[in-house]
C-alpha cells in the first residue's frame, strides 16, 4: 500500500515536472513576483466567465427585448422590461399588475422571508443556548442538529413530501389522534406553513452553529461573576447573553434575510413547482420559469427581475457588512 | 567559491530608500560579517546579494561577472535562515536532497553528497526524522547541511544563532568557524551581535540605516572606529562619550577641554579641526586606569566578578555616566570616590558636525 502510493506519487511528480517546464521558461521571462499572475489566472478566467461577465450581461439583457439569445440580435428597449414588471394598479394586489405572477412571487417571497427568518433565528438561538449549556454530549447534539444542513434540497423535499403525503406518516398520526386526513401540500395555507417549516428544519443547524460560536466567544468569567452574585439563569440569559450576542445576531439575521429571499430549491421540489396554483411561487422560480421553462424565453424580463432582486440583495449585503464591521469593533 | 563586489548598490521600496549606494569588496574565501542594529538593513543587503530581492540600481558581481538578474540558484549561493526554514513535511534526508533534486542531479551523486554532509554534521542518526522531532541545535545543523550539500560558491547566514541558547550559541560559533576553515568558501554572515561578528569574521561590515559605516578587520574596528556609530556599536560595554571643546590644534594633535579634562592633547591628525569646535571624546571602559590622583569619580554601581570588575559612576561636570572595566580584582563601596587616568593614545575624538573620527597619528 505504501509502495503503491509512493509509486503513484512518483508518476504524478514526473508528470508535474513536465508541466513545470513552460512555467520555468515563463518565470525567466517575467520574474519571480509576477508569477503570481500565472497562479491567479485560471481562477480569474473562470470568475470572469461565470461571475463578472454574467453580472454585466444581466444588466445588458435587462435593457433589451425579444426572444433572441445573442445579445447583438436583441433590440434595445430601454426601461421597458422594468416598467412592465413594475406596471401595477396597486402593489398590494398582484392581480392588478401586468405581470401578476411576478408580484405574486414578490408577495410570497416577502411573507416567506419574514416568517422563515424569524422562525429560524428564534429556533437557532434557543438551540444554540441549550447546546451551550451542555457539559457532555455537546458535540453529539451539535452534529444531530447540523446534519440536515448537509442534505440536498431534492432529498429534503422528497423526505418531507413523503412524510406529508396523503398516505404519509403525519396523516396516520392525525387520524390516530382523531383528526381529519388532510392533503397538506395541496391546501394553500397548509402548504405555505410546511414550506416555511421545512426550510427552518433544513437550515436551522447552520445558523445554530454560527450563533453557538458567538456564544462560546463570550468570556466564561462574566457568567461566573453573575453566579457569585446569585443571578438566576433566566436573568443571565436576558441580561448578559442576549445583549452581548446582539451584534452577532443582527449579522445572522441579515444573512438569513439574504438567504430567504433566494428561496427556490427545496420549496420547488416539495410543492411540485410552487403549487398549489401559485401559492408557493417565489421570485427565483419566476426568473427560472421566465427564462428557461416557458414557451417563449423572455431573457430580458428575467434579467430585469434578476437585477431588481440583485439590488435588494445588495442593499441587504451592505447592511450586513456594516453590521459585521460594527460587531467587530 | 567566489569573490563578490557590490558597486553603488541601491534599493528602494515603494519610494523609500532602504540601501544607499553601497560599495563592498569581498575576497574569495573570506568570512565577512554584516553587523548592525536591528532594522539597519543588513538582512536586506544579504537578500540583495542572494538574489531573493531585486536591486534598484548598481551592480553585484560574482567573480567579476554581473549577476544582477540571476536567481539565487543561478548565483549558486546557499543560505541558512534565522528560522532555519526547514521543510516541515520532509524528513531530514529529503530536506538535504530537495535542492539537489531540483537541479536534476544524478541519484547516486545526491546520495553521496548528503551522506558526506550528514557525516560531517553528525546527522546520520536523524536522517528519517521530521524537523519537528529535532532539537534546536539539530535543526540548525540540518539547515547548515542543506547549504553544504549544494557546494555553493557563497554561504549566506542570516542570524543563524539567534534561536539557540547561550551555551549552544558559543559552541556553534566555533563549529561554523571550523567549517569555514575546512570548506574555505566565501561566507557572509548577518548578525546584530557584535561579539559574534568580532569572534568569527575576518572582515566586518558595519551597517546603519541602509548605509555602510565602516568596513574592516575586527580589531581595526575596535581600535580605529571611523565614526561615532561604529565606536559605540563595537565593544561591550559601550565606549564612554563626553562633550569637549577644541582649545588648540597643532601637528602633535588636538588639545581639548571638557568639564573634567583640562587641556588634554590627543594625538590625532587635526585636518579640518578649528579652535572652538565642539567635539565628543570617547574612551573605552577597558582603557581606563585607576590612579592615586586624577579625575575623580563617584561610584554609583559596582560589579565585582573576581577576575574582572565593572565600575559605574558619575564625574563632576559630566552628564553621562561612565563605565570602567578593570581586568583584575578590585574592591570599593558605592559612594566612594576614586581617581581615574585616561591614556591619550587610547582616546578617540569625534567631530560633532560630521560624527566622523579624527584619524589617529600612527607611531
Amino acid at each position: 500500500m505504501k509502495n503503491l502510493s509512493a509509486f503513484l506519487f512518483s508518476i504524478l511528480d514526473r508528470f508535474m515536472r513536465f508541466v513545470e517546464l513552460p512555467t520555468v521558461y515563463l518565470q525567466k521571462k517575467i520574474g519571480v513576483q509576477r508569477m503570481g499572475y500565472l497562479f491567479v489566472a485560471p481562477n480569474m478566467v473562470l470568475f470572469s466567465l461565470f461571475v463578472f461577465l454574467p453580472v454585466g450581461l444581466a444588466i445588458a439583457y435587462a435593457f433589451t427585448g425579444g426572444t433572441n439569445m445573442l445579445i447583438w440580435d436583441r433590440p434595445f428597449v430601454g426601461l421597458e422590461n422594468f416598467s412592465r414588471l413594475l406596471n401595477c394598479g396597486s402593489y398590494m394586489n398582484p392581480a392588478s399588475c401586468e405581470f401578476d405572477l411576478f408580484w405574486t412571487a414578490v408577495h410570497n417571497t416577502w411573507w416567506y422571508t419574514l416568517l422563515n427568518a424569524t422562525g429560524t433565528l428564534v429556533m437557532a438561538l434557543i438551540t444554540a443556548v441549550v447546546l451551550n449549556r451542555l457539559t457532555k454530549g455537546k458535540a453529539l447534539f451539535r452534529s444531530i442538529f447540523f446534519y440536515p444542513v448537509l442534505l440536498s434540497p431534492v432529498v429534503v423535499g422528497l423526505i418531507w413530501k413523503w412524510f406529508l403525503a396523503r398516505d404519509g406518516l403525519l396523516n396516520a398520526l392525525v387520524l390516530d389522534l382523531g383528526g381529519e386526513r388532510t392533503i397538506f401540500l395541496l391546501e394553500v395555507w397548509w402548504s405555505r406553513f410546511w414550506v416555511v417549516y421545512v426550510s427552518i428544519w433544513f437550515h436551522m443547524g447552520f445558523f445554530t452553529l454560527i450563533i453557538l460560536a458567538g456564544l462560546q466567544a463570550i468570556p466564561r468569567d462574566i457568567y461566573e461573576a453573575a453566579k457569585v452574585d446569585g443571578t438566576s439563569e433566566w436573568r443571565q440569559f436576558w441580561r448578559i447573553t442576549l445583549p452581548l450576542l446582539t451584534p452577532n445576531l443582527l449579522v445572522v439575521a441579515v444573512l438569513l434575510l439574504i438567504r430567504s429571499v433566494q428561496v427556490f430549491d427545496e420549496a420547488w421540489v416539495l410543492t411540485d413547482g410552487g403549487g398549489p396554483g401559485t401559492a408557493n411561487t417565489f421570485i427565483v422560480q419566476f426568473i427560472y420559469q421566465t427564462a428557461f421553462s416557458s414557451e417563449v424565453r423572455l431573457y430580458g424580463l428575467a434579467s430585469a427581475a434578476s437585477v431588481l432582486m440583485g439590488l435588494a440583495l445588495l442593499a441587504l449585503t451592505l447592511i450586513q457588512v456594516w453590521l459585521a464591521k460594527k460587531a467587530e469593533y | 567559491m567566489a569573490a563578490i563586489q557590490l558597486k553603488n548598490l541601491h534599493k528602494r521600496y515603494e519610494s523609500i530608500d532602504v540601501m544607499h549606494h553601497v560599495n563592498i569588496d569581498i575576497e574569495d574565501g573570506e568570512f565577512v560579517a554584516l553587523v548592525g542594529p536591528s532594522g539597519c538593513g543588513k538582512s536586506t543587503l544579504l537578500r540583495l546579494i542572494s538574489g531573493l530581492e531585486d536591486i534598484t540600481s548598481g551592480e553585484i558581481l560574482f567573480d567579476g561577472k554581473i549577476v544582477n538578474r540571476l536567481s539565487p540558484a543561478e548565483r549558486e549561493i546557499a543560505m541558512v535562515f534565522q528560522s532555519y526554514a526547514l521543510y516541515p513535511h520532509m524528513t531530514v534526508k529529503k530536506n538535504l536532497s530537495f535542492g539537489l533534486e531540483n537541479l536534476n542531479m544524478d541519484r547516486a551523486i545526491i546520495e553521496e553528497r548528503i551522506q558526506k554532509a550528514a557525516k560531517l554534521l553528525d546527522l546520520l542518526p536523524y536522517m528519517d526524522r521530521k524537523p519537528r522531532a529535532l532539537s534546536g541545535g539539530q535543526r540548525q545543523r540540518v539547515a547548515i547541511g542543506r547549504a553544504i550539500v549544494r557546494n555553493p560558491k557563497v554561504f549566506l547566514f542570516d542570524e543563524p544563532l539567534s534561536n539557540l541558547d547561550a551555551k549552544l550559541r558559543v559552541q556553534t560559533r566555533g563549529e561554523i568557524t571550523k567549517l569555514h576553515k575546512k570548506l574555505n568558501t566565501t561566507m557572509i554572515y548577518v548578525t546584530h551581535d557584535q561579539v559574534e561578528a568580532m569572534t568569527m569574521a575576518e572582515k566586518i561590515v558595519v551597517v546603519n540605516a541602509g548605509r555602510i559605516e565602516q568596513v574592516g578587520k575586527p580589531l581595526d574596528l575596535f581600535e580605529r572606529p571611523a565614526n561615532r556609530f561604529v565606536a559605540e556599536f563595537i565593544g561591550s560595554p559601550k565606549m564612554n562619550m563626553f562633550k569637549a571643546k577644541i582649545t588648540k590644534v597643532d601637528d602633535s594633535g588636538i588639545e581639548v577641554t571638557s568639564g573634567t579634562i583640562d587641556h588634554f592633547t590627543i594625538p590625532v591628525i587635526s585636518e579640518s579641526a578649528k579652535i572652538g569646535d565642539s567635539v565628543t571624546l570617547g574612551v573605552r571602559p577597558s582603557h581606563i586606569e585607576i590612579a592615586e590622583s586624577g579625575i575623580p569619580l563617584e561610584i554609583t554601581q559596582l560589579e565585582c566578578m573576581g577576575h574582572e570588575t565593572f565600575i559605574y559612576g558619575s564625574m563632576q561636570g559630566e552628564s553621562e555616566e561612565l563605565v570602567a572595566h578593570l581586568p583584575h580584582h578590585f574592591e570599593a563601596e558605592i559612594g566612594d570616590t576614586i581617581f581615574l587616568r585616561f591614556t591619550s593614545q587610547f582616546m578617540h575624538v569625534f567631530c560633532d558636525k560630521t560624527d566622523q573620527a579624527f584619524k589617529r597619528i600612527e607611531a
Partner: protein
Amino acid sequence: MLKFLTRTRHHGKMDITDILSWLWLTLGTAVIAIPIAWAMLSSLKTEAEVNSFPPSLIPQSTVNTQVEGYDKDLSVWQWTKTDGETKQVALVRRIGIKATVVDMDKPEKTFQVPISEITQLKDVHFQWQNYTDPLERFDFFTYIKNTVFVTVVATILTLLLNSMAAFALSKYKFRGKNAIFMLILSTLMLPLSVIMVPAFIVIVGLNLADNLWGVIFATVATPTGVFMLRQYMLTIPDDLIEAARVDAASEFRIYWRIVLPLCAPALAVLAIFSVIWRWNDFLWPLIVLSSPENYTLQIGLNAFQGQFSVEWHYILAMTVIALLPVTIVFLVLQKYITEGVAGSGVK
C-alpha cells in the same frame, strides 16, 4: 445512559431549565430524525406496503406458502376460532365476508371461515429490489455515474485552482493583487440566483450547454475556497518559500512540493465541502443539463419523481442513495465539518 442524561451543571440537582433543555434536545432530535428514518424505512418496503394506509412501521411482507394441488403460492393467515383456539391456514379465495381456506397439513380439503376471524400473517422483509430496480430499469446508474464524475473532477479542480490563486494572493507581490483579492471576495456576496440567466447564456456561448463540463467549470472557482486557503497560507512562513528558491526550486515546484503539502489540513476541509456541495447541487445543473443521459442524481431524481410520482418505493430508495454519501462523510468527519462551518461561516 440515565446518568448521562441527568448530568447537569450543578451536580446532583436537576432544575426546571435542565428539564426544559433536555426536552428541547429530545424533541429536536425526534423532529429531525423521524422524517429521515421514516423515508429510510419506507424505502425498504414493497410497493404494496408503501401504498397501504395506515402504514406499518417496520417493512413487512405477506407470508406465502406452497400448498399441494395449487399452482400459485397461497398467503398464510392466522385463524382465531370463536373458542379462542388459533391455527394457521392458507387462503384460497375470498368471496364477500367468507373466505375459502385450506389447512396446510391437509391440503386436499378446503373449508370456509368468516373473514373477521382471520388476519394475514406478515414477517419482516426488506425489499432491496427498490434499490436495484431503478439502477437497472431506469437511468439511475447513469445519474450516479454523472454525479460521481462531476463531484470528483470539480473537487480536484477546485483544490488545484483555488490553492493556486490563494498561493498567488498570499505569497507574491504584484500590481493589482489587492484589487483582484477584493474582486474575488465581492463575489462571495453574489448569489447564483441573481446571475443564473446570463451565466447560462455564457454556457451556451461556450458550447457547454447540456454538458457535464458546463456544470463543473462554473463551480470550481469559489471565493470561499480562495479565502479559506489564503488565510491558511498566510501562516506558512515566507522563509520556507525563499529557502526553496535558494534550493533552486522553480515557482511552480514550490507550489507543488512545498505549499500544497503544507496546506493539507485546509485542503482537506475544502475537499469535504466541495464534495458535499457538488453532490448536492441542484439549481445550476437543473439549468445547464437538459437530456436525461446527462442528468446528475439530484436532477434525475427530481425528474423521476415528477414523472413517476406514484412509484414512491423507488423514489425513496433513490433518495436514500442520494443522502448516503453525504451522511457517511459527515459521520466520519463531523468534527472537521462543524468546526469548519463555525470557524469560517461557510456552508
